[in-house]
């Protein structure tokens, strides 16, 4: 376990809520990392101090509201992402590595979107080329017809043709 992994589970460690294996890894890490050890000390002393403080009285109705919220939370059905995340976690990841799942899913999604876009662009390309070959043939003929009109602006017709050929380059 490294510092980052330990700190993500530090709260559970202090509250003695980690599984045996993870708790063992945490102990090993603390024995070699004075920084994390001092952080744990700080957190434990804060926790002791909190417990020693006088109990505050909750506002009227607080308990009911809290219970209602908790009940609602229990009824909450997990979304697709949560379910997918849970499945992946169960399949591939050891407990405590939750944070790695979301970037992985996001990465997969980005790859999927890029792959679909590349596929769609590659499908559209030939049609688009064909489209403009036909339209250009018609435009050339119309320019020939319109541009030779002595009452027309022949130079503007010629420039319009070049703008069409060069596109945004001009």
């Amino acid at each position, binding site marked *: 376990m490294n510092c980052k992994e330990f700190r993500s589970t530090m709260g559970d460690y202090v509250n003695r809520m980690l599984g045996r294996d993870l708790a063992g890894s945490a102990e090993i890490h603390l024995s070699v990392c004075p920084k994390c050890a001092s952080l744990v000390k700080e957190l434990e002393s804060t926790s002791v101090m909190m417990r020693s403080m006088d109990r505050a009285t909750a506002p009227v109705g607080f308990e009911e509201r809290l219970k209602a919220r908790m009940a609602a939370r229990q009824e909450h059905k997990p979304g697709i992402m949560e379910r997918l995340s849970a499945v992946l976690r169960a399949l591939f990841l050891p407990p405590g590595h939750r944070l790695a799942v979301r970037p992985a899913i996001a990465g997969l999604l980005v790859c999927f979107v890029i792959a679909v876009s590349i596929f769609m662009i590659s499908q559209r390309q*030939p*049609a688009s080329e*064909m*489209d403009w070959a*036909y*339209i250009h*043939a*018609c*435009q*050339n*003929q*119309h320019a*020939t*017809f*319109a*541009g*030779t*009109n*002595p*009452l*027309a*602006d022949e*130079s*503007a017709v*010629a*420039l*319009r043709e*070049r*703008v069409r050929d*060069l596109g945004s*380059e*001009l």
Partner: protein
Amino acid sequence: MRPIRLISLILVLAAAQAHAIDGRTILANMLKAEGSVAYIAHEVTTLAREPAVTSEQTVYRSGFKGSRVEYTQPDLLKGEIRADDGKVLAHLIPKDKLMVKRPSRIAGMREWAEHSAKALQKGEIEVDLVGKDKIAGRNAYVIELHPRHHHQGKRKLWVDTEKWVKLRTEDITPEGTVASLSYYTKIEFVKNIPDGKFHVETPEGYRVEREEGPIRTMPLEKVRRMAGFQILEPSYLPSGFKLAGAAIIPFRDGKIVSIRYTDGVNTLSLFQAKGETLNPRFLKRLHEGPVQPGRGIYSWRKDDLNLTIISRISMDDIRRVAGSVK
């Protein structure tokens, strides 16, 4: 009558006489000059679009004998030459080391000039003299042309009062905005321009592309016989528009039929091609509607034909024409 009053009266009458020339006469003179006057000019052209594009070019023109345009601006066009010797319209593009050869447009210009002169005689084009101006140091009449029915946009021309050459042209949209303008900043009239000026040799190392296509329009009946498929025609045309002719354009393994209409000032082309001429993927994607906004191109399918209209008239009118094609 006192002598001073008499002189004033004579001067006023003389001035009135000088202004007696009307727009129709100016335009008729201009059409005649198109085929004969030779000059070298520096020209500026601007397309009023987003973003606006401006080019500068040196123009050599010798009536219906030949023309040559050498682009000097913008950088991307610098060095390009378009030269028409009456046989070939050569377009040299140094940037791409490319020479594009197309059929000459001069025969078409002659046909058009005759067509416009007839339309003017028949009163199909209305011309108003709207003033006088000075362009490239030369006096010019300013005339406005529009088809008999005004709603399709108009054209404003500045015509040299002495040589009858068009010095400036403004294309005005049906909405009244300027779509494009070209004007000479310098012009020198010459007796003759050597034929060699209108011919461009392909430089070594340049690729040559040939674009085929008939320039001369044919009678529609002839095209109908040559097409090999049933040609459709519109039952509605905007007021003043008449059939100008038709043409067949070879395209891949098939052909595109082009029917051309004009009201004397504006043009409209209707293109039609059998579906099998084109890529099946393209056919699926060809939807009914304008092809890119503001381009005056409208495409649709009818039975096994692909149809396209190109014109600078209003899109509403293009749609109406398209809806009437049977």
